[in-house]
């Protein structure tokens, strides 16, 4: 898809539900679905979290956010209460919890029993929602697998009725795809209906969207990420009449772009942002290094939030998060660090020249506005109805981040760059990822490079879930080794992955996984391969864990042994995979050496 000329390229459907009709339907439901209270609203005597946020800003307080989501909702509620109390005793306040749903919650309620289950929170009954609302005086923020998913409307309705007044996560619509759920038009309708329900509530409610979760990490130009935020504001506010608030932070490791993005949000009027997320890409297996990373991003977040408040809560990520789902003590510890850094903030903030940051922020706003305007103009010219939220959401999703940047990016055209445009503000992660890949390539002995490269391999690379970095890294390394790569997909459906691998004549499948569904996914994949008569090796790497079916702790366990048993080649990292690949190729090396002699 090089250039968008015609609506049919993105929206081939002859009939699509009109957005206005779905909006009306969602709004009408507000007569039945009305706002509930929760412990947080009662404790602080406020109507909404937005009201509370404005109060905090006025008092010069920075809010704090903790992500939590054990499989069992009642255990999650107990943990929320414990964490809040422990911090309260130390004189620190926790303002909100981000409740991390399992992917299973993204399916419509009637399908959930038959669908895959990961490691996250599952509110399987009304009492579960109520227990979380009552657990602690913390604002409940449901982020993952809410708005943007097939169960957008059902989940939003429950959240509203149990005291949530902000909820995520619109950006998930673009690339969080549930297995066996191909109908993105239906998903767009459910998303729009949920937003309309929020729009018609008698209280000030917000649709949150994490700029880093959707297409954000796939743009090479940060101005496109910001432009997509502005696009969403148009969609949510202008077209549906609801309110939009931006989350960001996971992908921002550099304090300059991190602070600039927050200040750019301030420039476009955000004053009740949900939270700035932790820079999780900085985290790794080394806890000491993670301590440094935690203190690093938190320090600069505090500085800019104090200087230019936008209502965002600070999110200190536990140092163990990379290795496992953190336990309550680890969450408390990270919050103590953050609170102390708030106390120490004055010693750092006078040393920051915010003018440097504000110049980047202004570039982001100007570039973002160009991106949004280009996009709406371009879509309109192609015949897409830019006043219809469903059509627009589908068009953006189906175009994909790469095309959107190519077509509408605000950067000057430059054929030498990855997307044909020179980024206004370069995204560090893509550059970092390539550097990491280059480092791996540089460390491989020449013999091994030859062995792998000389075989004419075709690799089908895919991920089991939305986390794409492992795949991007692997593809970069494979290209460097002259291995052809076939895109097996992100959150790839097992049957479709098998089709792609078979069609392309792939020699092996390389699977990157993250979200605790490694074993059940592999089982499904093997079934699909057997059905298709495909017999090629499966290399699997990433976070190889899963919550056992009979678990009473809700904590995931390592499933490497089970994966090996199911016939996969388990790789601890990219290097290990290359070792296995080269090992398989060794006879060829030996043969060619013999010939040479």
């Amino acid at each position: 898809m090089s250039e968008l000329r015609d609506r049919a390229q993105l929206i081939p459907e002859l009939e699509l539900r009109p957005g206005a009709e779905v909006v009306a339907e969602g709004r009408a439901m507000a007569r039945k679905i009305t706002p509930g209270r929760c412990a947080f609203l009662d404790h602080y005597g406020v109507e909404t979290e937005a009201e509370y946020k404005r109060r905090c800003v006025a008092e010069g307080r920075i809010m704090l956010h903790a992500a939590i989501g054990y499989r069992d909702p009642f255990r999650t509620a107990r943990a929320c209460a414990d964490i809040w109390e422990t911090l309260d005793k130390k004189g620190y306040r926790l303002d909100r919890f981000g409740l991390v749903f399992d992917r299973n919650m993204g399916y419509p309620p009637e399908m959930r029993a038959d669908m895959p289950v990961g490691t996250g929170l599952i509110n399987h009954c009304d009492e579960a929602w109520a227990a979380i609302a009552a657990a602690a005086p913390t604002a409940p923020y449901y982020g993952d697998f809410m708005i943007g998913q097939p169960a957008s409307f059902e989940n939003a309705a429950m959240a509203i009725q149990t005291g949530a007044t902000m909820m995520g996560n619109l950006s998930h619509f673009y690339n969080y795809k549930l297995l066996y759920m191909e109908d993105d038009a239906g998903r767009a309708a459910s998303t729009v209906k949920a937003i309309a329900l929020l729009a018609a509530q008698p209280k000030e409610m917000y649709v949150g969207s994490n700029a880093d979760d959707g297409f954000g990490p796939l743009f090479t130009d940060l101005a496109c990420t910001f432009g997509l935020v502005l696009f969403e504001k148009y969609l949510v506010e202008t077209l549906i009449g609801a309110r939009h608030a931006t989350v960001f932070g996971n992908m921002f490791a550099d304090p300059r772009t991190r602070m600039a993005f927050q200040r750019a949000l301030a420039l476009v009027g955000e004053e009740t942002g949900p939270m700035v997320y932790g820079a999780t890409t900085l985290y790794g297996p080394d806890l000491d290094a993670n301590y440094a990373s935690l203190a690093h991003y938190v320090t600069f977040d505090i500085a800019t939030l104090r200087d230019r408040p936008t209502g965002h809560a600070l999110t200190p990520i536990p140092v163990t998060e990379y290795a496992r789902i953190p336990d309550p003590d680890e969450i408390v510890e990270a919050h103590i660090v953050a609170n102390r850094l708030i106390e120490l903030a004055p010693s750092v903030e006078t040393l920051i020249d915010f003018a440097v940051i504000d110049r980047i922020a202004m570039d982001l706003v100007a570039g973002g506005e160009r991106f949004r305007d280009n996009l709406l103009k371009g879509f309109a010219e192609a015949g897409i109805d830019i006043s219809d939220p469903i059509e627009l959401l589908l068009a953006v999703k189906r175009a994909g981040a790469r095309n959107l940047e190519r077509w509408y990016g605000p950067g000057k055209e430059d054929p030498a760059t990855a997307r044909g445009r020179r980024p206004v503000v370069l995204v560090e992660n893509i550059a970092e990822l390539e550097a990491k890949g280059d480092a791996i390539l540089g460390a491989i002995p020449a013999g091994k490079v030859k062995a792998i490269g000389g075989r004419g391999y075709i690799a089908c690379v895919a991920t089991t879930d939305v986390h794409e970095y492992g795949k991007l890294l692997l593809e970069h390394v494979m290209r460097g080794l002259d291995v052809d790569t076939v895109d097996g997909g992100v959150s790839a459906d097992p049957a479709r992955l098998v089709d792609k691998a078979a069609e392309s004549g792939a020699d092996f499948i390389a699977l990157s996984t993250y979200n605790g569904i490694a074993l059940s996914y592999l089982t499904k994949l093997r079934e699909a391969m057997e059905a298709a008569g495909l017999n090629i090796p499966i290399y699997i790497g990433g976070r190889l864990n899963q919550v056992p079916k009979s678990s009473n702790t809700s904590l995931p366990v390592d499933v490497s042994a089970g994966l090996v048993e199911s016939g996969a080649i388990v790789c601890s990292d990219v290097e290990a995979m290359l070792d296995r690949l080269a090992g398989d190729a060794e006879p060829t090396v030996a043969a060619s050496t013999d010939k040479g002699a």
Partner: protein
Amino acid sequence: MVTDTPGTLIAGATTMYGPDHALNAAALSNYVRLDALAQRLRPTGQAIQTIPLTEAERIPDIEEIVEVHLIANRTIELEAPFETMHDTTEADAMAERIVEAGRRFARAVLDGLAEGGIDTDDPMELMLAIRRTGSKRLEELFGPGEEMPGRLRGRKPVETSTSIEEMEETGEGHVANLDPALRETIRVADLRGCVATTDVHEYGKILVETVLGRLDVAIVDGGVSIDPNDLAETVVREGADFIALSSYNGVTLEFLRDLEDQVHAQGIDLPIFIGGKLNRIPDGSNTSLPVDIGGELAEAGAVVCRNIDEIFGALGYIAAAKAAKAAKATEADEL
């Protein structure tokens, strides 16, 4: 530029440390970040010292030393972009004020000592004169700050030392939270407290003095790194009602026994409050790691105060006892 001699090291900000390791980790990252920025922008050759998170409670073991160095190294890597967005206007202005005032102080000390007949060309004489005058008197006599009666050292500091400022704030915080009735009991008792340290670490003493001052308890300076016999002498001479002893370096038990002997030899008995880091390496220890001796100190007759707030209760008790004694004496006189 004051000097271009390469510096040795910048010591870690140990006064920011306490028993909570997470708080210490925040403190560590804070000072390492600023030290690293300073060295990047204007290198003076000092190495950055990273203090193990356990330092406030014990002598750190090897892993704990390695741990903070890993944190510090990563912090230095991560904070590299700071160099491109810094603004040191305020810090530079402060540096200039410190240099100017420091030069004035040095000049005033040399002139003052010379006036007092000290041969300021003789390094040994100078060193002795400085040591024997002590930091407090030096600041009182020659400090570059404007004179201001009532303030600590009788002057308005050019730049308030943050540690002392923090100490004063902490002390005020403790007093502010005190039960008003107890506060009044202490105030009217007209107590005299002799405050001293067993070693060179003076912050505990400053904190105690700040608190006692706010409670209208008269303070007798028992000295820093004082010997038990000298302290006993001061106590008797000044007629103190109690001794408040701050300790850090694990020498307290021996010190306490010696002090008690000396005081008793003078024929008096008064409460000895003891606080700070109350530990020692046990005789025969094979780990060389100190253990807590709070229990032993209490057994030996000291009033062990784990924190400032525990002093208040003890003070109230002494104040009440003194008042009762005074009342009895009055009664006896009247009779």
